[in-house]
């Protein structure tokens, strides 16, 4: 936070992301469980990934596979019954898990902001939208700006996300769903965070608005060079906007690589089934490969590979031993014993 923040958009111009190499975020062997009265629910099991500056990572997977749990771990906003058992979350050189609560509170929004899953309800109904954004600015800017300066910044952000700056004096109920979501994006940008977590940023929006919001997010990311983690179960959305893709299953990251590589040739059976069960409207008619069965009960996760009970390629080894994350080609990691058996996609999906 060296640049003068009271200068409108001053920071982005003064800082070139290319100058600072190394990953902005490094998640290292993260293990997180929820304590319940029946035992521990293994929500995030030994997940590692890194995100470079200005990169975007997509996390996909079924509901309950641990995507949001990872996001909450990154923000350190887990519910009381969650326990991070092991691992590191290193943001720009500092392990977030070692910070005090007060230090972490200061980091939130300033370094790591979030676009929420339920943008509809993420605004406090009794305060003006502009005032709620100004609350974040007042808390985190190095020098607390005057109301006029903060408002100028909010107006600028509103224009950036395609909202009329006059709307900042309105209350949340006067916004449509898409407008609320844009305002959430404006709020996420208000303190120039290093990384933004977008948890299902467009799920509640209709397809047309979804497209516009995604387009805006992408152009903002390119303009400011910040890193974004997109969390979604909507593979089409992820394919469109991310450079890197992580596929999660039952709390584990099972495949990780460049988005185009994973889409072109998924090597984990789950990723392969997931991608080939998504119909393409424009592509040729194909027989979809259905994904049989239910996601496992994470109170008692399956032994060995967590996907083996549903896997068409499973062997005895899969039930006995947990496959390690292996780099099968540069930058493309897979956790599967039998990834070589996974067939090619029948057509380009991406």
């Amino acid at each position, binding site marked *: 936070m060296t640049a003068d923040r009271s200068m409108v958009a001053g920071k982005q111009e003064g800082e070139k992301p290319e100058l600072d190499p190394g990953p902005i975020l490094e998640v290292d062997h993260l293990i997180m469980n929820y304590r319940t009265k029946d035992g521990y629910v293994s929500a995030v099991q030994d997940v590692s990934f890194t995100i470079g500056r200005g990169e975007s990572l997509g996390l996909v997977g079924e509901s309950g596979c641990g995507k949001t749990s990872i996001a909450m771990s990154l923000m350190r906003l887990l519910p009381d019954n969650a326990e991070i058992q092991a691992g590191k979350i290193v943001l720009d050189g500092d392990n977030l898990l070692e910070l005090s609560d007060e230090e972490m509170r200061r*980091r*939130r929004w300033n370094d790591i902001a979030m676009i*929420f899953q339920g943008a509809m309800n*993420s605004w406090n*109904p009794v305060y003006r939208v502009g005032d709620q954004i100004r609350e974040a600015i007042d*808390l985190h800017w190095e020098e607390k700006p005057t109301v006029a300066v903060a408002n100028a910044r909010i107006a600028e952000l509103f224009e950036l996300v395609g909202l009329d700056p006059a709307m900042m004096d309105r209350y949340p109920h006067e916004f449509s769903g898409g407008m609320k979501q844009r305002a959430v994006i404006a709020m996420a940008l208000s303190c120039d965070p290093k990384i933004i977590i977008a948890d299902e940023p467009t799920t509640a929006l209709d397809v047309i608005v979804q497209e516009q919001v995604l387009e805006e997010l992408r152009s903002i990311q390119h303009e400011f060079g910040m890193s974004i983690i997109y969390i979604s179960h909507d593979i089409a959305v992820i394919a469109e906007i991310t450079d890197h893709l992580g596929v999660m299953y039952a709390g584990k990251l099972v495949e990780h690589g460049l988005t185009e590589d994973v889409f072109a040739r998924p090597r984990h059976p789950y990723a392969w089934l997931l991608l080939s069960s998504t119909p393409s409207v424009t592509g040729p008619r194909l027989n979809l490969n259905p994904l049989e069965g239910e996601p496992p009960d994470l109170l008692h996760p399956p032994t060995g590979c967590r996907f083996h009970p549903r896997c068409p390629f499973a062997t005895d080894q899969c039930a006995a031993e947990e496959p390690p994350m292996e780099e099968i080609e540069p930058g493309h990691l897979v956790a599967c014993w039998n990834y070589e058996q996974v067939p090619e996609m029948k057509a380009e999906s991406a």
Partner: protein
Amino acid sequence: MVRYLTIRLLQMFVLFLVFLTILFFLINAQPGDISAQFVGNPDIPPEAKQILRERLGLDQPLFAQYLFYIRNVLTLNLGVSFDHYPRTVADILLTALPRTLYLFGIATLLSYIVGFQTGKMVAWRRGSAAETGTMVTSIILYTVFYPWFAILMLWFFGSQLNWFPLGKFLTPAQWFDAPYTANQVFNTMLLSMFLAGAGVALVVWGTGKFVAEPVPRTRARRILFALIAISMLAFWLISPMSRYAADIAYHTVLPVTTLTLVFYAAITLLTRSSMLETLREDYIFTARAKGVPEKVIRDRHAARNAMLPVTTSFVLAIAFIIGGGIVTESIFSWPGLGLTLLNAVNVEDLPVAMGALAFIGLLALFAHLVADVLYAFLDPRIRVQG
């Protein structure tokens, strides 16, 4: 807002007339009239009773009585008391009403302020020993049979410990040579309380409007509040009335405490559940993600929203004045509206009973209006147009 208020006031007027009509026929549906009191008295012959009934207009057809009554009310004439003849109903009620408002006003205000704060803290520290303790106390106080609780308080603090007087409005022995009437002293007390309240409201409004930055605003408010408190204190220290005012105040402690405890329990329980619901909202999570300090989340984000249902309960609390007023005032012999109503009904003093109930009805109507206006002020989603 002006348009809205005008419409609301007109609606209230119509509603009040409907209320009076129902009230009139309900009250007259009870058998007998004031002359029934003299049934057992051999000194009063039936003819005298008949004369009494004729003079009070009770021999007229009911519908004629009704039209007569409504016409009188519309000209702000509530009639004359049968029992305290020739005192007018308005005179009796205007003496009793301030005493009830005083009792319930203080108890309501105290219980809302303390109850809201307790409910807020208890919800925030969910699962703590403080929460369990407060909840057990509140549930006991809330579910206890209120008249029994009032008598218990009177027995313990009045009779056993002898700390407080056993009811009544004042100690007559101290007032023999008083240069003031009880009403003069009491009205001065009310006036000074009203002025202090208005002063506080003015300070809050004025500093909110003219001092933009939060730190000097808090400082200005503290100084001005202190000034108000000092001037109130100075007035009552100097005033020769203070000895008599203290006597009245002394008599209010026990009924006010009893009422406050019961109200407080209800407000605490309500605030707690409202607050717990609010704390689950997404915007609380947003505030956390924004890095808002926990205390600010509690006060500015959660409590502000949790206040909405508590405000609604204010209207319901007014309904308690009707039932609770009669019980409280008869147990503590407090000469307010409730006791007046009870006595009037017992001797079939219909104009006073009608008048007392009409006042309670007016009170309820105004409480609804106040709650609606407060609600519109607190919640932008229902802010009224016009």
